[in-house]
């Protein structure tokens, strides 16, 4: 048994290691390219980006901008969930409402909202309100759709069974429809978070007079890829964390028990 084949066997059994290996190789390629191939005006190696993170944080205004962005994301998500829940239940539970209103909702969802981003800024100003509004406008639709689906695809026999035991309308809503819809609700929230991230970050990048958009523009115009990459990394980490939270919540709370 040669060393090579032992290693090969080990790698085959643990694709996770190979995955990490691939990421490491990509990082190395980035490092080498940025150091030796590409003009430092355009690209910065990961080692330097990492080392300069404190400089990014030290840039006056950046921590505040990041805090505001995080706040906007949290608020937009909360509002999306609240509105999505209300609309989703209202439309999902009433069949006529669903028949007439759903096409309108789907039409709005299919519209390229990016075209009206300047309008949002004009209406709501350059402060957090417009970013939150744009985030909600992206995040609310997946939640509504998921809740409507969760309410609609309930097996009729469960409703019949409850009715036959004397359940009132309130009983059915609270003990049958609501628990049934929970997995769909969590799946919708996961997609909603993606939407909120997209909406808020788009709006932030667009408004270059305040917030992180101001700093991305500044770093770009000053040909400072180190700090730009640093800022982007921080935002990417924020996005990953938020997405992971919703994903974990879905796994923990969003599934019925099954073996």
């Amino acid at each position, binding site marked *: 048994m040669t060393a090579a084949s032992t290693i090969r066997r080990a790698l085959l059994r643990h694709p996770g290691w190979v995955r990490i290996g691939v990421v490491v190789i990509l990082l190395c390629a980035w490092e080498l390219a940025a150091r030796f191939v590409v003009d430092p005006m355009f690209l910065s190696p990961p080692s330097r980006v990492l080392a300069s993170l404190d400089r990014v944080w030290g840039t006056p205004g950046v921590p505040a901008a990041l805090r505001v962005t995080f706040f906007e994301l949290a608020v937009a998500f909360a509002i999306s969930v609240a509105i999505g829940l209300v609309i989703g239940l209202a439309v999902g539970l009433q069949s006529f409402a669903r028949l007439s209103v759903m096409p309108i909702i789907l039409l709005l969802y299919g519209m390229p909202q*990016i075209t009206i981003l*300047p309008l949002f800024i004009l209406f709501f100003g350059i402060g957090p309100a417009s970013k939150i509004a744009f985030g909600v406008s992206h995040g609310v639709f997946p939640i509504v759709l998921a809740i409507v689906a969760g309410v609609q695809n309930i097996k009729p026999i469960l409703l019949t069974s409850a009715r036959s035991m004397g359940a009132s309308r309130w009983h059915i809503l609270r003990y049958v429809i609501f628990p049934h819809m929970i997995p769909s609700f969590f799946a919708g929230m996961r997609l909603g978070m993606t939407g909120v991230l997209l909406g808020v970050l788009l709006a932030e*990048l667009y408004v270059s007079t305040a917030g992180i958009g101001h700093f991305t523009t500044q*770093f*770009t115009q000053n040909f400072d890829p180190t700090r730009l990459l640093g800022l982007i990394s921080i935002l990417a980490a924020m996005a990953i964390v938020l997405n992971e939270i919703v994903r974990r919540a879905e796994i923990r709370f969003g599934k019925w028990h099954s073996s």
Partner: protein
Amino acid sequence: MAGGREQRRKWASRAVQAGFLVVLTLLWYLATTRWGVSSLLLPNPVRVVQQLGDILRSGEFVGDLKITVAELAAAFAVSSTAGVTFGYFLSRSPYLVRVFEPLLAGVYAIPIILFLPLYVLFFGLGPASKIALGATISFFPIVLNTLAGFGNVERTLVVAARSMGASDYHLFRYVLLPAALPVMLTGLRMGFTVALLSIIGSETIASLAGLGHRIVYLAESMEMPRMFAYIAFVVVIAVFLNTVVSTFEGRFRREP
């Protein structure tokens, strides 16, 4: 034949939808003409329609439209070629699929639009950065769907073909490709939609030309009616392009 209650419900729901549009338009008109909503916020719908007519007649839109469509075509060409090729070759090894699929899917956790400033720094404010970003973003749904399409071909089909003496080329052309095509086409459709959105988005945020930029320019000069007209125009173009692509996808899904 009279369908009774069901037909009535369908008509009633259509009436609600039509009524919604009518009421919305009415409110818009009244808000700008009677209720004193500032025309800096909401322009008179009649003026918007007039501006739209003007734009169409003068052909002013052609320059920006050409740029946007060219960027879209270039981005999609790059991402579809790369995505399909990479996806196909990756699918040939189930092990590599296990390694790479989570990595590729994991990218969805980050909104890639975040990298726009980096692309602008690298490529400048011109079309190149939009094409590069559009290609990057649309690469992922294409490669993942191609991977899934080729990866999930029924084993028995392959075995049966081989047993009848099919060569590698035969296998690819007559078994793998047709089997993978529906899922692949869905991925291509998703990639196209996402490329279009990202290009308009990057034109909005950082650009000197293109339809997205035009809207921003008009917003900054507070030319509200013309801006609304362009928004309507872009929405129609986007819906049109997406419908074309969806129909294409549907056509291929039905033919075996």
